[in-house]
C-alpha cells in the first residue's frame, strides 16, 4: 500500500492507482512522477472523480492508464488547449496536464506562452527527459548541443531551449522544476502547483533510462532552491536562477497571484458550460436586430 504520514494523518494514494502495471523501462523517470502525483492527489484530499488528467503523446502519455481519475489521452502537443477547454467548461474540476519535452516544447510549444499569459488555472507537468523516448531516441528541443542521438549521429547541432526562462518570460504565475529522482520533493512541488490558483508550470527532469541515462550527473548537479534562501516572489531572482547552467536548481522558482482566466467569464459560470443541460433559448430579442 502506497501511503505517507502527514501531521499524524495517514494518506492513501492507492485510490489513484488503476492497478495496471506500467510498461515503462526499468529505471524510467516516469515512475517517480507517477508515484509523486498519486501521493500529491491523495494528500490534497481529492477524489478521483474531481480530477482530470490530460496526457500527450510520448512515454509520459501512459500516465492516463495508470492514474485512477478522469483522463483524456490526446494527440501530440495539444495537452494545454484541451486542458484549457476542460477547465473553462467546468472550473470545479482539478485539471492536470502531463506532457513530454517533445510534446510541450517541440510540436506543442505554441500553446505554452499563451496558457501562461492567460493564467488558465491548470497545472502542466512536463516529463522532461531531453530525448524522444517512444520514437526510440531522437533529439528534442531540450537535448543538449552536441549530444549524439539517432537523429543527430554527428551531434545535436541545435542549442537547447530553456523552458523555465520561457515560462517566466511568458507570465506564468507558478514556475518550478522537479527531479524524478527525489520523489518526496517532487510530491511537495506537485501539491503546491495544484494548490496554486492560475497557471502552474512544473518541468520535471526525468532521465530516460534507455536513451539518455543521466541520473548520476543530475544527482551530482542538483540543489534545492529553498536550501539557499531563494525568494520565490522575485521574478528577477527567478530569471537569474533559470539561467544557471553549472548547477541545476530544483524547487519553486517563482510564484505570484493574479486573477485566473475564468474570472473573465462570471456571466457564464452559474452553472458553468459543462454543467448545463441544454434548454430552449429565447432569441426574440436578437431577431429585432435583423429587421
Amino acid at each position, binding site marked *: 500500500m502506497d501511503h505517507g504520514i502527514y501531521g499524524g494523518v495517514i494518506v492513501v494514494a492507492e485510490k489513484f492507482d*488503476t492497478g*495496471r502495471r506500467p510498461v515503462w523501462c526499468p529505471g524510467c523517470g516516469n515512475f517517480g512522477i507517477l508515484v509523486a502525483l498519486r501521493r500529491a492527489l491523495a494528500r490534497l484530499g481529492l477524489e*478521483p*472523480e*474531481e480530477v*482530470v488528467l*490530460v496526457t500527450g503523446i510520448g512515454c509520459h502519455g*501512459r500516465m*492516463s*492508464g495508470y492514474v*485512477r*481519475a*478522469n*483522463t*483524456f*489521452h*490526446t*494527440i501530440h502537443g*495539444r495537452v*494545454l*488547449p*484541451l*486542458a*484549457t*477547454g*476542460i*477547465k*473553462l*467548461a*467546468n472550473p*470545479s*474540476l482539478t485539471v492536470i496536464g502531463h506532457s513530454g519535452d517533445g510534446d510541450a516544447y517541440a510540436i506543442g510549444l*505554441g*500553446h505554452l506562452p*499563451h496558457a501562461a499569459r492567460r493564467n488558465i488555472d491548470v497545472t502542466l507537468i512536463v516529463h522532461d527527459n531531453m530525448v524522444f523516448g517512444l520514437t526510440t531516441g531522437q533529439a528534442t528541443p531540450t537535448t543538449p548541443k552536441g549530444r549524439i542521438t539517432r537523429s543527430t549521429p554527428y551531434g545535436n547541432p541545435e542549442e537547447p531551449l530553456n523552458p523555465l526562462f520561457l515560462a517566466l518570460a511568458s507570465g506564468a504565475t507558478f514556475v518550478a522544476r522537479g527531479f524524478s529522482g527525489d520523489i518526496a520533493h517532487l510530491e511537495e512541488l506537485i501539491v503546491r502547483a495544484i494548490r496554486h490558483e492560475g497557471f502552474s508550470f512544473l518541468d520535471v527532469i526525468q532521465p530516460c533510462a534507455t536513451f539518455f541515462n543521466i541520473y548520476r550527473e543530475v544527482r551530482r548537479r542538483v540543489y534545492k532552491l529553498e536550501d539557499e534562501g531563494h525568494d520565490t516572489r522575485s521574478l528577477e531572482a527567478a530569471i537569474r536562477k533559470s539561467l544557471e547552467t553549472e548547477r541545476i536548481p530544483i524547487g519553486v522558482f517563482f510564484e505570484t497571484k493574479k486573477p485566473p482566466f475564468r474570472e473573465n*467569464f462570471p*456571466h*457564464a459560470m452559474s452553472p*458553468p*458550460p*459543462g*454543467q*448545463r*443541460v*441544454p*434548454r*430552449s*433559448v*429565447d*432569441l*426574440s*430579442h*436578437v*431577431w429585432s*436586430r*435583423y*429587421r
Partner: protein
Amino acid sequence: MSGREEFTFLVGGPAGAGVFRSGLVAAKTLFRHGYYVHGDNEYPSIIRGGHQWMMVKAAKREVYAHGEEVDAVLALDKETVARHRGRVREVIVADESVARGLEGVVAAPLMRSVREVGAPSVAVNMAGLGFVLGLYRGDVGRLEAVIRDVFSKKREVAEVNARVARRAYEYAAEAAGELALEPLSIGEPPRGKIVIDGNSAVALGALAGGLSFYAAYPMTPASPILHLLAELQKEYGLVVVQPESEIAAINMVTGAAYAGARAMTATSGGGFSLMTEALGQAAMTETPVVIVEAMRAGPSTGLPTYTSQADLRFVIHASQGEFPRFVLAPGDPYEAYMAGFDALNLAWKYQVPVIVLTDKYLAEGYWTVDEPPRLEPSEGKVIRGEYRGEEPYKRYKITPDGVSPMAIPGTKGALVTANSSEHGEDGYGSTDPEVVTAMQDKRFRKLSGMIEEANGKGVKTYGGGPLAVVTWGSTKNAVLEATRDMYGVRVVQVLYLSPFPSERLSRELEGADRVLVVEANKTGQLASLLREHLLLEPDGFLGKYDGRPFTPEEVEEWITGFMEG
C-alpha cells in the same frame, strides 16, 4: 401605394469608406419599405483602399440572387463609376466632386449636405443613400430609423448621420422631378421575416441548440461568427475565447465538450486544414464537436475574400483513418440557422464531429427569410450528477446503436476515460485485433442512424419536371432565381453531404430524364458524389471557380441549352 416591383442598387467605393454599412442600411431600408431583399458584397483583402461594393436587390417577391444589371449606383469614388457603368439601367449618383467631368452621372450635393449638418466627411455615404432614396421617392423616415438602429451603439453618430441623410434626401427633390424614375413602393416589411446573413444565422442556430462554449481564431469569412458570439456572450452566458491558433481552438472545443459543454468553432479552409488532426481525435474519442467551415477560394490562401465550394471532398474525407461524420451544407440563412441547431443536436446524439459547410457568399450575404422558430435542443445519452449502473462505468461501452452513454467528468461513481489512441470499452489503450475491430465496428454502427437522419432532412426539391438540376449550398440561390419562370425544371438541393442521402436523392430524382449539376468548383465534387453513391452520370455539369457566386443569367443560359437540345 403601388410603386415599382423591383429595385436593384449598388454602392461602391474604396475600402474604409463604409461601403458595407451603406449596403446594409440600404437593404434594411428597402425591407422596411415592404420589399424582400438580398445583398451581396465583394471586396479585396485590404483594410483601406481597393475597390469594394455591395449590391442589394429588392423585390415584392422572394429574391434569391441578384443579376448582372443594377438600377441605381451610388459611387463613392470615380473607380466605381468606371467599373459598374456598363451594368446600370437607370442612374449613377456621385458627389459633385466625383461626378465632375463624368458623363451620365448625377452630381449630387453629398459633401455639401455633410458640411451643412456639420458631420464628419465619412458620413458622405449616408448622404448618398438619402439622395438616392429621394430620387426614388422613398420614405426618408424609414431610412433615418434604420440609421439609428445600425449606429445604435453611438447615439450621437446615429443622429448626425440621420440628419445628413435627410438633408441629401431633400436636395434630391428637384433632380427627382427631372429624372422621373419609377418610385419605390412604400409598404410594411414582409410579415414574419428578417434580413440576415449566413454567419449570424448559423451562430444563432447554434445558440438555439444550447451552445455554451465557443473558441475560434479569426479567419475570413468566418470571423463575423466570433464577433457576434463575443458580443452576445454576456446576454446568453457563453464562454467565448480567441485562442492562439485553429489547432488550439478545436482542442479547446474538444476539451469543453468532453467536460459537458455544447461547443463549437468556425473557420475557413486554411484553418480547417490545421484542425484536421483534432477532427480525427474528436471522432476517435467520440467527443461531440461542431466545426463551421466557411469556404473561400483556394488552394492555399487563394482568394481570401471570395467564395467557393471547392472544399466539399476535403471536409468529407479530412483526417487519417475512417470514421463517420456529419457534413451539413445550408444554402440560405434560414437553413444555416437550422444547421447550427441540428449540428449540436446531432453531434451530441451520435457523439461524432459535425461540420457545417458554408461559403463566403452565404456567410456574408444577406437574405430575407422567415424568422426562425424557437427550438428545443435534446441532451442525448448524457450522464450527469451520479452514475448508478451496476457494472463500473465504461466510456466506450459497446451498444446496439454504437452510441455509449457519455458521463461528464465530475459525475459521482464514473471515471471518464477518453482516449485518442485505439482503446477498449474502458478507454484503456489496446492493439488487440479483436478489440480494434470491435471498436471500429462500434463507431461505424452509428452510421445507420446517421444515414436515416440524412435521408430524412438531407434533400429538398423545388418545383417539378423532367429536367433535374442538382445543386448544394449557396449556389441553390442562383439556380432558384434562374429557374423561377422555367417550365419542366425541378431543382434538387442536397443539404447533407455526409453521410450521403443516397436513398432520398434517388427518390427525388425519379422520373427525371436528364440530371444536371451546378456547383462553384472546377472538378464537379457533388457530381462525383452522384457517380459514387447513385452510380449516376450527370448529363451536364456547370462549374465556376473565379471566386464569384453564379449569376442567375449564366445558370439560365446554360440550362436553356439543355432544354432546346
